[in-house]
């Protein structure tokens, strides 16, 4: 090993060095700002999590698996996974092996440490004849090949994204394109530059072979310098563009993972975690295909990836438009490989809206309301009466009032099972607060939560039964009801069936179960309803189900989508359910039910109807 130049310096390193310094400084400042923007409590929690061994290892593992290997993408599509991990992991290994190489062979680097690992082959002549040398040469060439294969796939993906399981991809912004092309250019240029130098500095199967080809045509070594310049420039351009392009996700995600592992939630619409999420967005466009609104082409630009872009640009008008239109089904969050929470991010945007008039519920007497729901009725069927005498308070919810069959059949099931129950909203009741929360009116939602809490606590119930997933979610997430179990009727029915208090008659009816957004993605309830339905008939699955279930289009989440705009979404969701050609569509949400029944060609039922029809009183 020998230094080729005494100075160990050439001007061509400048673009790279400047870019590197710039991007490092930018990232450090940015990271500090994000951390400072966190509320004091969250910041403390974050720092503690960094030094807690459990979260520390989780962080390392997550960063490795997510940022380098992209496991989520592997799960989705092998080719897509390979493309991403080959570039990320390959590059990472190039950097890592490059550094190892530098530290192995040179001492007292000084300022050279900045660029030596990158341009080692130019400054240092090596021989591949030693074992050590040949291994490193081989590794470097190998990982370069890996990256190059990734780049090749990336180029193919630009043209044929369907091969990668993506119907639509993001329309890149100008700087994204600059970043993209410079990234694409980096590795071929590196190959070129190193190949030129391979006969002097040494190389392996890739660079050396290319060098032989080059010497046939371009024997003059003076040609090598422009190649190194080009390589350095590509790197420099990439680094300069990085903070302003989607590639900012590379450094930001490393911050986002520990933040998320620390259990921090979005508080401010634009600062702290929200900012980390926005900058973590790689613009991959997976959320575009996921979005139920995209059946209408006009809505493509209202998906999460574009929200992130507009937030980065501070385009307030578009931010408002995008965040108000969303159905808040949460599917983009579910599919996002970096963990951008599209729904919560939007709610946060909605919550900063200025209103000159605000509702206020202080005039509503919780006491009076509670008086109306504290007379628990024991079902006439005493044979199966519960031994533990649980008192079930059934909150049907606003939407259920428009689909009274759900309430009626739920009551009927409760009676069959001999449950002692009382209805909380016989005469309307209060809203659970979730619609207000989704509209970003958090103070108002909080007031309703407090009122309802008072009512429920005063009722003397020990179980709160809900048939509306919208209510269920807020009751689980935002209510504190000590001593009271909050349960959705799908879960409760499963319990009744398992405990034998209900006996199901199974027949050959084919049911497909639609996962309501708020129940599935929102609360993680997937299996219980399926178990119940499977005991009533034949359960078939939709093309996309569970976490990837498609919103019915009726969601309260969207503030601006008009009735006429939702039809296509509902029809798309129905066609998704038709994959197993079911006889009946079953759901567990009053809103999904009324939305589907509007356009469906076959019966749409709530799970309560199915259970009521196919069950009889069991024995304990």
């Amino acid at each position, binding site marked *: 090993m020998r230094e080729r130049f005494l100075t160990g310096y050439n001007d061509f390193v400048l673009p790279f060095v400047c870019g590197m310094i710039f991007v490092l400084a930018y990232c450090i400042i940015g990271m500090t700002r994000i951390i400072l923007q966190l509320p004091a409590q969250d910041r403390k929690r974050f720092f503690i999590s960094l030094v807690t061994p459990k979260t520390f290892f989780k962080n390392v593992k997550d960063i490795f698996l997510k940022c380098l290997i992209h496991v989520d993408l592997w799960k989705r599509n092998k080719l897509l996974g390979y493309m991403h991990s080959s570039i990320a992991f390959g590059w990472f290994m190039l950097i890592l092996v490059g550094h190892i190489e530098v530290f192995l062979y040179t001492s007292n680097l000084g300022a050279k440490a900045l660029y030596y690992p990158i341009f080692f082959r130019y400054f240092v002549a090596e021989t591949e004849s030693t074992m050590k040398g040949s291994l490193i040469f081989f590794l470097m060439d190998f990982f370069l090949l890996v990256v190059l294969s990734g780049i090749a796939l990336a180029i193919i993906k630009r043209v044929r994204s369907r091969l990668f399981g993506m119907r639509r991809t993001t329309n890149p912004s100008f700087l994204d394109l600059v970043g993209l092309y410079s990234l694409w250019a980096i590795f071929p240029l590196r190959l070129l530059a190193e190949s030129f130098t391979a006969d002097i500095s040494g190389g392996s199967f890739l660079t050396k072979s290319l060098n032989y080809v080059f010497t046939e045509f371009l024997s003059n070594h003076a040609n090598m310098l422009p190649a190194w310049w080009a390589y350095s420039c590509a790197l420099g351009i990439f680094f300069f563009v990085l903070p302003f392009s989607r590639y900012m996700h590379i450094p930001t995600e490393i911050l986002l993972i520990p933040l998320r592992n620390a259990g921090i939630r979005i508080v401010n619409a634009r600062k702290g975690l929200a900012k980390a999420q926005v900058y973590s967005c790689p613009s991959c466009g997976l959320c575009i295909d996921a979005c139920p609104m995209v059946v209408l082409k006009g809505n493509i630009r209202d998906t999460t990836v574009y929200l992130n872009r507009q937030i980065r640009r501070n385009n307030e008008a578009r931010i408002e438009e995008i965040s*108000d239109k969303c159905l808040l089904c949460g599917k983009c969050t579910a599919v996002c490989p970096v963990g951008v929470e599209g729904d919560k991010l939007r709610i946060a945007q909605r919550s900063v*809206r*200025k*209103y*000159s*008039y*605000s*509702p*206020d*519920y202080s*005039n*509503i007497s919780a006491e009076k309301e509670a008086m109306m729901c504290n007379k628990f009725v024991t079902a006439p069927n005493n044979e199966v009466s519960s031994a533990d005498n649980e008192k079930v308070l059934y909150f049907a919810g*606003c*939407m259920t*009032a*428009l689909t009274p069959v759900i309430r009626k059949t739920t009551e009927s099931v409760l009676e069959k099972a001999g449950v002692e129950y009382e209805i909380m909203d016989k*005469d*309307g*009741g*209060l*809203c659970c*607060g979730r*619609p*207000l929360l989704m*509209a970003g*009116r958090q103070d*108002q939602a909080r007031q*309703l939560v407090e009122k309802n809490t008072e009512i429920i606590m005063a009722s003397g119930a020990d179980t709160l039964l809900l048939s509306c997933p919208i209510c269920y979610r807020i009751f689980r997430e935002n209510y504190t009801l000590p001593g009271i179990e909050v349960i959705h009727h799908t879960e409760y029915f499963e319990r009744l069936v398992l405990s034998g208090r209900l006996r199901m008659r199974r027949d050959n009816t084919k049911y497909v179960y639609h996962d309501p957004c708020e129940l599935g993605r929102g609360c993680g309830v997937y299996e219980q309803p399926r178990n119940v339905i499977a005991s009533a008939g034949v359960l078939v699955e939709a093309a996309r189900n569970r976490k990837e279930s498609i919103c019915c289009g009726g969601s*309260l989440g969207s*503030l*601006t*989508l*008009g*009735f*006429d705009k939702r039809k296509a979404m509902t029809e798309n969701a129905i066609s998704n359910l038709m994959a197993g050609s079911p006889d009946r569509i079953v759901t567990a949400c009053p*809103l999904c039910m*009324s939305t589907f029944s509007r356009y469906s060609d076959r019966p749409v039922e709530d799970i309560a109807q199915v259970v009521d029809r196919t069950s009889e009183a069991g024995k304990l």
Partner: protein
Amino acid sequence: MDFGFKLSPSSAINLDKVDLSRFEKLHGIEPDIIKCMACGSCTSSCPANRFSGMSLRKVILDLQRGREKEALGMLRNCMLCGKCTMVCPRGINTRHLILSICRIYGEDGK
């Protein structure tokens, strides 16, 4: 001089004098507002009706008649639950309408 009685304010709505500038602003954002045909479905399904007499039909009408105070009084207990959106035969996006009213009208909006 106190006679023990005085002029009672007119209860009539004088459309010539009603200031509709805020309504026009609202109409700009919510063009569907005047599609309302006053069927009253929203009112009959409204859970807030019991508390503040909320009736979106009346709110829409009152805003057109310049009776803003009355309209906001009714809106006081609106819980944005969306039942009115579900039942509206004219497909008016009532929730967004209510949010827009809250943005345009009210104390600070004056």
